[in-house]
């Protein structure tokens, strides 16, 4: 049974990974904790359900949901970071929180606060090895999460756009002097981050077959914790942090009970911060070593 619980933990961690990467991108490059990410996550999940319910073929529903996430994230960028960049640092942060509440309430008004069941367009999607049961969508989520993080890392390290983004992460004003078009690259950060969050929301909907307006909040705290545990701004740190939280959460339930989950997860966070304040893969010079 312990093997099954480890599988459960890794699969759960895959969702946290995507949310943590979305958070780490904006905080790593723009030094901006984007609180609207759980809202983007939720919008994508809810639209996956809504589009499937409307009878759209599943590839179109998935693409539609991802597009909604990307557009929502871009709207947040235009109305918060871009619009209020010259304001005090907390103004865009608070505005992004406003967007989270706005997104949740828009969905609440449209579809109510009920939990909606996502009917999968596929039959039984599980692989069974002896007594182990592995959900194929969850396995795909995990592989996709790690694969996309690898691609993101390549993009940041090997492409001109990546170099530009890393320059912005070091110093936006210096990057601008060096010829990096900051105004063009910043929206890309939001779109990429939004796509990670949207992918997480869409896979959440398909894996757990449930969506509701507040589903983003359920994973947001764990996603932020995964980012901090792994090392803020380090995408591989987010992968490690997400998987670790997933496994710790599941093992807490296995060995104790559900009431111990938050104690274990946030206890782990505190212990790691105490001994290694920069996170497991974070360096002391936080900007220098990220990505």
């Amino acid at each position, binding site marked *: 049974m312990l093997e099954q619980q480890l599988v459960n933990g890794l699969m*759960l961690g895959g969702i946290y990974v995507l949310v943590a990467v979305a958070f780490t991108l904006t905080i790593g490059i723009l030094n901006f904790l984007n609180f609207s990410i759980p809202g983007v996550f939720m919008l994508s999940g809810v639209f996956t359900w809504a589009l499937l319910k409307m009878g759209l073929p599943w590839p179109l529903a998935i693409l539609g949901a991802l597009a909604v996430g990307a557009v929502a994230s871009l709207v947040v960028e235009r109305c918060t970071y871009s619009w209020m960049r010259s304001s005090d640092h907390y103004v865009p942060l608070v505005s992004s929180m406003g967007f989270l509440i706005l997104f949740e309430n828009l969905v609440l008004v449209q579809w*109510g606060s009920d939990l909606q*069941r996502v009917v999968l367009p596929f039959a039984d999607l599980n692989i069974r090895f002896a007594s182990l049961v592995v959900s194929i969508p969850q396995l795909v989520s995990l592989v996709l999460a790690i694969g996309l993080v690898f691609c993101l890392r390549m993009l940041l390290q090997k492409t001109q756009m990546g170099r530009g983004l890393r320059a912005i992460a070091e110093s936006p004003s210096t990057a601008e002097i060096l010829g990096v078009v900051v105004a063009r690259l910043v929206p890309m950060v939001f779109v990429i981050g939004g796509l990670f969050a949207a992918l997480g929301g869409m896979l959440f909907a398909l894996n757990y077959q449930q969506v509701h307006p507040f589903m983003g909040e359920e994973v947001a705290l764990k996603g932020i914790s995964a980012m901090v545990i792994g090392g803020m701004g380090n995408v591989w740190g987010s992968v490690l942090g997400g998987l670790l939280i997933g496994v710790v959460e599941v093992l807490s339930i*296995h060995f104790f009970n559900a*009431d111990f989950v938050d104690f274990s997860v946030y206890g782990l966070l505190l212990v790691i911060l105490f001994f290694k304040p920069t996170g497991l893969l974070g360096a002391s010079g936080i900007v220098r070593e990220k990505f």
Partner: protein
Amino acid sequence: MKFHGFIATAMTAALGLGFTAATAAQDLVLGYIAAKTGPFVSLSKTNEIAAQIAVDEINAKGGVNGKKLRIETFDSSGKPEQAVVGVRTLEKDEKVLAIIGPFSSSEARVAFPIAERLKIVTMPMASSAPGLAEPFKFAFRNTSNEGYMFAQVMKTLKQKGIPVRSASIAHATDDTISKVMGTRVFPAIFEKVGIPVEDVVTFKLSAFDLSPQVSQLASSPTDLVAVGAPPEQAIKLVTEMRRQGHQGRLVAGSTIAAPDLPERMGEPGNTTTLPTTFFADLDDRTRAFAAEFARRAKAEGERTLPAQFDAATYDIVLFFAHAMEQAGVTGDPDKLEAERTAIRDRLAVMKDFPALEGSISFGPDGDALKPVYVIEIDNGKWRLLGTQQVQG
């Protein structure tokens, strides 16, 4: 000219307000603490439709003691602290005669003491944690004790020869009724009927991944899995159980009694069994109520099948109207406290009231005594497994 126009408008408005206030003063006003969001929203948000059907029916027949009945609503969002605010607001500001609701045991637990101090009757339509109303004189519940309800499920399963050799329990820990079901009701009833409890797993209401709990249950599968949770968590649990190959029968109390549960659970929900105090297809009266409910719910874009809590809310309005009629309530603000107490006194002695849910009386603990219908999901629909009439 403009000034004259202003005066004319102001006078019209003043007259209009005066007329409205005069009309309102003639009404008998009931308070209603609604839960339009929150953990039990799928069961609670349509209750107001049922209450309004009852009010409209009563007013169509001439009202109560010659006066129109009216409801003032306060939305607690299913939050206990807001339920307390709701009792205070309805009692002090709206000066209502009695209060319908609040919905859940978490809310009732804190609303009852306040209502007792303010000397006003509150009557939840869903709170069923054992003994909550017992210490109070102004607390009534149009619900049956969950222990009694679940005992009827076990009795019916046994009567039908359905295998019940072993059981496990899954319950939420951060909701009063769910925890009471999991830690007190299920263990007590299983012990009483001699069924060993093999395992107990817990989860939180916000948990979206129940795979670790189900892996634990699936390691030693049992005939029954008793779930103490709102419908949403039960849906997640049964979906995950079937995914991991656990074929046990899900049994529950009334916490998951959503009429659209078969549709929302889909195929994994087959054989899920629970007690309810309302079965829409019972007789002409229940069918007529269900039809009217469906008509109004459709217009509001809500679930069109009435839940037992909708029927219970409808009946609460009837109880209050009956008590007000018996007590000769006038709605006179000067007699407010005396008339609230008179309503309480009439409710306490009400026996065999011909309600929508069946013949209903109130026991000494303030809880309603009413028939229990045991139903199971059979290929996407509810099926009546058995009816257990009131005992004691």
